[in-house]
């Protein structure tokens, strides 16, 4: 019974990590602009993230190292510094996007300018991390994140066109607007394997003292949990494709995205969209803020644990105490949370090789994972997807930014 509860909790936990502002925004954008044509990107990205999450968890179970800790040890401080700079830039943008997502959710139900909510959300976030333990932070917000099941219910109510959805799982070239198609594809993949999630997952495994006996649970969590998150993202693509695209509504703002819920839920549509967006983003912002602390603390060998009191790991607490207000300032200064989201998700795809390839090296190193090394399928599949996503990102980002 305890094992079943552990697995269930792991699955619920993974929803928070998988579904965030990036997954919601990119799925909605893809559905409205390209119908069901981009489902294959979501399926491929999910497959890749299942492999990566399982690897990060297995590394923690066997070696009792978090990902960053092991990368610094295996690849040296110089490589770690490069990773640190890249991840801090991307994580700060993602944190800004997540804080913006919560603020926009509150704006959608109150009508008050989202910028007024940003400092309040940032303060609540900081307070929760300051006072909470890892389990409380993780499980509390993830359980709230179950509200995102409303997207699945909405899709179900609309009567999903399964035959067309199956056709969407076959890779296809864009029928129009190729630059936007590939930029959206990169955004979807970037939203799925956000580098912060891998280190957060491995750090969480160490916080919860996972060991060799937890390897099967780690596998179940990675497969079922990430597939569950993918189901919600796929539901958003289908809902958006059925309700917005045929009306000619493209998504330039969250106000437009929220309209996908009006047909299935009527007057409850906007509040449900806001609740789903807000809780998913709040859960993810907790993870990004904590990951920034993990990143510095593990890299520089400081005390770290969300289960310690702030005075016991003061530098760990200092990092999120500085990062959260800085993220809040970024949302207010940069404006347009949807644009911050799409851009930061594409940057995730650019950063992915910097963290994924060291992970692959570690997962094939007997010194770290003993006999629990990777199979060739995992190595090849993950490498191929990450390289392809990187190349597309390297081409699509300049085209989107400079070409308007």
């Amino acid at each position, binding site marked *: 019974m305890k094992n079943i509860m552990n697995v269930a909790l792991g699955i619920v936990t993974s929803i928070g990590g998988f579904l965030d502002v990036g997954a919601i925004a990119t799925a909605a954008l893809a559905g409205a602009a390209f119908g069901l044509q981009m489902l294959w990107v979501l399926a491929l990205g999910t497959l890749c993230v299942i492999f990566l999450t399982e690897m990060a968890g297995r590394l923690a179970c066997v070696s009792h190292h978090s990902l960053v800790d092991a990368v610094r040890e295996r690849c040296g401080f110089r490589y770690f510094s490069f990773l640190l700079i890249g991840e801090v830039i991307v994580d700060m943008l993602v944190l800004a996007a997540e804080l913006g997502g919560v603020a926009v959710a509150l704006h959608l139900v109150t*009508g008050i300018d989202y910028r007024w909510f940003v400092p309040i959300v940032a303060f609540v976030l900081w307070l929760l991390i300051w006072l909470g333990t890892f389990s409380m932070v993780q499980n509390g917000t993830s359980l709230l994140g179950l509200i995102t099941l409303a997207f699945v219910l909405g899709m179900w109510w609309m009567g999903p066109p399964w035959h067309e959805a199956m056709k969407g799982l076959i890779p296809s070239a864009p029928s129009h607007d190729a630059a936007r198609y590939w930029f959206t594809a990169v955004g979807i993949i970037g939203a799925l394997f956000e580098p912060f999630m891998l280190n957060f997952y491995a750090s969480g495994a160490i916080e919860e003292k996972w060991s060799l006996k937890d390897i099967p649970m780690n596998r179940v969590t990675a497969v079922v949990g990430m597939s569950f998150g993918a189901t919600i993202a796929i539901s958003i693509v289908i809902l958006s494709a059925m309700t917005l*695209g045929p009306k*000619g*509504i493209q998504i330039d703002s969250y106000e437009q995205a929220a309209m996908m819920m009006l047909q299935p839920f009527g007057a409850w549509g906007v509040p449900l969209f806001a609740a789903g967006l807000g809780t998913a983003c709040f859960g993810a912002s907790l993870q990004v803020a904590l990951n920034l602390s993990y990143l510095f603390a593990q890299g520089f060998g400081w005390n770290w644990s969300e289960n310690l009191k702030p005075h016991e790991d003061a530098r760990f607490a200092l990092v999120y105490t500085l990062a959260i207000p800085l993220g809040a300032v970024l949302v207010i200064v940069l404006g347009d949370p949807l644009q911050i989201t799409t851009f930061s998700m594409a940057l995730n795809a650019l950063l992915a090789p910097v963290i994924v390839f060291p992970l692959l090296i570690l997962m094939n190193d007997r010194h770290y994972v003993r006999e629990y090394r990777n199979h060739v399928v995992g190595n090849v599949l993950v490498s191929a997807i990450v390289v392809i996503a990187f190349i597309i990102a390297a081409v699509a980002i300049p085209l989107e930014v*400079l070409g308007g």
Partner: protein
Amino acid sequence: MVVGCSPSPEKAAQEAKQAAGSWGATLSAAAEHWGGNEISSSYFQSVLTQARTSLTKEAKSARKSGGEIAAAPVDAVASHIDVIADAARRGDRVAAIQAAHAAAMAVPAEKTAPVARPE
């Protein structure tokens, strides 16, 4: 570099038309839902504010790259926003829907093929 890579006048005109059509369709759908009491007045106001902000930005960018011709569709849709906002302030749902439909008809949106429901 940015200037050198800015979109051609044709592309700017096409993007402006796309954005105008999308916002016209959004206004029309939002007004209908507001008329049917499915969305709150504050949310409807948010849609109007966002439409105004996005279209202003779009018109500026279109004008810069493609001149007045490129910006014309955006201006055509934007010109209806004040009428819709006035109707919303008065609580006149019929007038708001009519004005929003006019905005949608000013620049027809590029729609994706309808996704069929199973029989």
